[in-house]
């Protein structure tokens, strides 16, 4: 099961339609401070179902929508899609390619989709249940989390063990 591409539009600082292809095993993301690197990682946590705005460094979830600049007005919605190659059927679906999407409108309505078919959050969570991926999985690590893991804040250590067990 390989990650093929990520498609972001209207999410945080990514006002314009942006697509990233993951063709190689080790991908580096570089760029100046404040350019949007961590926003890309936030978009991955978000499309995998992150429900806490604090986990995305925001006060409220509506703040994921591009909030406008002097030259471009606020976006009407945030949308992120992630496409996986699934030829070995590790994701329990018949397709060779699986795309999960999440959309949030500024009316606060949100939608989830699997291969462009609307579904519930629970359906997305079930897809990845035994794969080790999830919005707060041990596989997504920022520097700030090192102290939390070692100090075992909110029993994060046990939670990680249970995810892997």
């Amino acid at each position, binding site marked *: 099961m390989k990650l093929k591409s990520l498609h972001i539009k209207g999410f945080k600082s990514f006002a314009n339609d942006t697509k990233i292809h993951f063709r190689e095993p080790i991908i580096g993301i570089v760029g100046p401070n404040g350019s949007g690197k961590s926003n890309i990682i936030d978009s991955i946590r978000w499309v995998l179902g992150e429900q806490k705005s604090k986990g995305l460094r925001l006060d409220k979830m509506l703040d994921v929508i591009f909030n406008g600049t002097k030259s471009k007005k606020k976006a009407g919605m945030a949308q992120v899609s992630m496409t996986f190659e699934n030829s070995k059927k590790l994701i329990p679906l018949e397709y060779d390619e699986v795309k999960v999407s999440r959309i949030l409108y500024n009316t606060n309505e949100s939608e989830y989709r699997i291969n462009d078919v609307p579904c519930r959050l629970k359906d997305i969570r079930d897809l990845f249940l035994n794969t080790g991926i999830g919005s707060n999985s041990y596989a997504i690590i*920022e520097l700030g989390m090192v102290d939390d893991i070692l100090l075992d804040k909110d029993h994060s250590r046990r939670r990680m063990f249970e995810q892997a067990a």
Partner: protein
Amino acid sequence: AREKFMESFYLIRDNFKDVFRSLFSNEDDCDLILLDAEDPLDSKIEIVAKPKGKKPKVLSQLSGGEKTLTAIALLFSLYLLKPAPFCIFDEVDAPLDDVNIHKFSKLIKRFSKDSQFIIVTHNKSTMAGMDTLYGVYMQEQGISGISQVDFRDYEHNETYQNVNV
């Protein structure tokens, strides 16, 4: 459930010792201890690091870089039990010295046979170990864009950085 947890715990512990030694050195040791062995499903898990020649240490006595290495060793020990299809690191290499950056990159290379890695970094030695680099920049004020970058441009970064400031 109890047997299954204990079985996983011992596997994670063996992995942890193995990865810890490859990040520190062969003479360094470490351990994972179930504080309440009677009730494994609820017990806290204690991490003990014993870098060589020094007395066994509680985590709070480790240096900034040593803490980061210990947390990385723990994550990979969970990963070895259940490899996730992709792993993401956001500036986790920032506290590391050159030797440890090198070891971290080697560890990523070793595991990239089974999974994809997405690494956000400012460190040139880490970048040198990537298969491809994506550069994130501000297309206009406040709007992020992304394009593939050749490491050689980044290495003599004056040209790259000037584009963005």
